């Protein structure tokens, strides 16, 4: 099934900070305003707004209720996706493809400085058993996933540490990375010496939740070409949710991403992702998960994900989730970073000659629900 192309015509990513001085409404306003300005559009041009915030992350019910004005949604068709920003982008894409809307504003926002990220994630667990015993959390799930991966494919800790090091080095070049993770002189040994969160997962393999907001504007093919000379096209999208129970899943692989990628590639007409994809911006919750997702997206053989660092498609040139991990916005940021690469706007970390890129988002423990976008550059 070939789908109509949807264009990314503008975006804005706020500079992430550990504790932002802005109020939530101000942050959303800045991101949305910035996106409109980057595309040279006005508020009246927007026809629909898809917001991505989470009630439990915001500490209030109906978290989009008061964000109507800040998000430019006054008297606009507004809705909220309570997942990752990338899922909101997918919903924006549905709305554009249906023909009912001509310009969709999508934003994702969260402020982990206002809440405790790890404890709030406990609320995602099955309240009839897992939540009461409180043994599953992002650390232990990440640890088990990493052990399963290492055992299944005989991968060593060093190789995964190398991915983390690459993430930090890439972040150092990214002006929109969190200042605390810009470590250009970090070594594999530093990662392996860092504190154990949950064996074998170490502190430096796990991103720091930080405040941020990202906004992106989508438009149909015809309108995109009028708005900008360099639109980035969404040519494929796939999404999948696998089962929740960790005991049912093979954690060394990601079924959700495999199915999502299969669908996205089919839609975009990509038969050999290894050679066709130039840039991969994958939202992995840990360094190890980045490899699992890359393998599930068929960029490398199972267990050979670490070879991507030396050759093949560029894996997370922006630093990935390591550079700025904002819940609710991280997936959207990945799409924006991929779009930057395709437009040639990523100065220091530009991948030369990038034509096709993929960007992913996820929610749930061990990437339970994954979404993958295939993007293509060139007006």
């Amino acid at each position, binding site marked *: 099934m070939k789908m109509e192309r949807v264009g990314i015509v503008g975006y804005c990513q706020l500079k992430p900070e550990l504790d932002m001085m802005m109020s939530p409404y101000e942050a959303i306003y800045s991101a949305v305003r910035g996106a409109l300005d980057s595309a040279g559009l006005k508020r009246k041009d927007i026809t629909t707004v898809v917001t991505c915030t989470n009630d439990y992350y915001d500490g209030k019910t109906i978290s989009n209720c008061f964000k109507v004005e800040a998000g430019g949604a006054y008297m606009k068709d507004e809705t909220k996706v309570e997942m990752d920003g990338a899922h909101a982008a997918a919903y924006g894409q549905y709305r554009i493809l249906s023909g009912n809307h001509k310009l969709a504003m999508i934003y994702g926002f969260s402020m982990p400085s206002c809440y405790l990220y790890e404890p709030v994630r406990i609320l995602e667990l099955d309240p009839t058993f897992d939540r009461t015993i409180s043994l599953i959390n992002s650390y232990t799930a990440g640890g088990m996933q990493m052990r399963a991966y290492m055992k299944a494919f005989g991968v060593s800790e060093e190789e995964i540490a190398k991915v983390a090091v690459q993430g930090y080095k890439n972040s150092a070049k990214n002006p929109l990375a969190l200042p605390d993770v810009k470590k250009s002189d970090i070594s594999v040994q530093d990662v392996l010496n860092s504190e154990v969160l949950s064996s074998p997962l170490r502190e430096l393999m796990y991103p720091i939740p930080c405040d941020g907001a990202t906004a992106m504007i989508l438009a149909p093919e015809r309108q995109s070409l009028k708005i900008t000379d360099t639109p980035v096209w969404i040519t494929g*999208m796939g999404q999948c949710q696998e089962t929740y129970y960790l005991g049912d899943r093979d954690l060394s692989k990601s079924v959700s991403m495999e199915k999502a990628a299969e669908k996205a590639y089919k839609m975009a007409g990509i038969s050999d992702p290894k050679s066709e994809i130039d840039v991969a911006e994958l939202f992995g919750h840990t360094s190890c998960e980045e490899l699992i997702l890359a393998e599930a997206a068929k960029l490398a053989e199972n267990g050979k994900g670490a070879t991507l660092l030396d050759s093949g498609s560029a894996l997370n040139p922006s630093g990935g989730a390591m550079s700025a991990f904002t819940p609710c916005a991280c997936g959207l940021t990945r799409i924006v970073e991929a779009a930057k690469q395709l437009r040639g706007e990523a100065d220091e970390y530009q991948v030369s000659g990038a034509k096709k890129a993929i960007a992913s988002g996820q929610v749930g423990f061990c990437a339970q629900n994954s979404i993958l976008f295939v993007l293509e550059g060139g007006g």
Partner: protein
Amino acid sequence: MAHKVQPAIISCGFCEHASKRSDVNMAELVNEAVEDCITKANIDWKDIDAVVNGNMPAFEGANMPELWMGDHMASKNKPLLRVTTGGTTGGSVTIAGYYSVASGLYDMVLCIGFEQQSCGDTTVGLASVALGEFSIFSDLGYTIERMRSNMGSGAAIGVASYQAMNYMRRSRATEEDLARVVVQNRRNAAKNWWTHLKMPTITIEDVLDTPYISFPLRFGMVCPASDGACAMLITTEEKAKQIADIPVYINGVASYSNESAIIGIDCAGAGQTDPCEQLGAMKSAEVAYGQAGISFPNKEIDYAEVYSPFPNQELMWVERIGLFEENQAPEAYRNGVTALNGELPVNCSGGVNSTNAIGASAMERPAEAALQIMGKAGNQVPKTVHTALGHGWGGSINLITHVVMSDEPQRKWR
């Protein structure tokens, strides 16, 4: 222009609603509705391409519960999208289902709205709508007493009573008019199998006999808190014709949002100076009717399901969404126009006033409207329904959803 897809509803399922569904957990509750829906549609669960769902998470203490409930939603290894917009969640989910099909990416989409309020603390949930706003008040010099007296009416019931005051002043509706709406809804609910408050013998006097909660709303006029779930299957025109006897085509959807009422962002002034003016509802109605090619809603709509936890809202909404002239609704209710055998039946399912499982409520409105067109509703109206409407509101009365459906596809727009 590429070929556009016409989405259609083929089946709706419910679980039994009650104040405490203590025999099931959230996942099993949803499962009941999903099974009801899939069985009635007579399809295999593998035919479902994607799932859209939503609820009000803060009322149940579970963040993104669809993650662990996925297997019970027939969504294993399938795309799943979660849409939550407060009271309008169900409506937003229906609309998300519509767009999933209309985009041409999925053929058969299962929409689910659910709520198990007996697990949680609805008061805290509702208060936390503006918790951030409340926390700022101490900086502004609010004392605890002032806060209690002023903010006690700031929650949903408060917003509704402000609305009621304004509406009653405008239309000269009396408390008896409000009670009449309640009586009509609860008597209707008694004939519908899945509803919560079934009161076949209730009278206006019974309602007016209860104490005030917040002037002019009385205890007997307020919606209950229910546990329940609703599921709906949306598919393409071609498939719908094969599967269903009478497919219900969704011809217009809109969800326009207004500024918040009563409290503004960061405690600033609220933009809605009159909470019963409802620009958002009028605009949503206009857009949805426009898409569906309806020019005279009061003549063309045969049946309406309106989201009204409080009786004054039912009177207000039917006017704002163009079914009655301004201030004429109370009289229409008096004359039985909106009754089961009236000219324009409204809320024959019993409405939100009788059953309010928040995340599901706004979906039960289009679902019941669709069932009336199919002729399969629990409380079926005697006349033939061709065009029907499902409406929802939520947030600080600033989020509105509209779903207009008909037994004929709308060719003009496609």
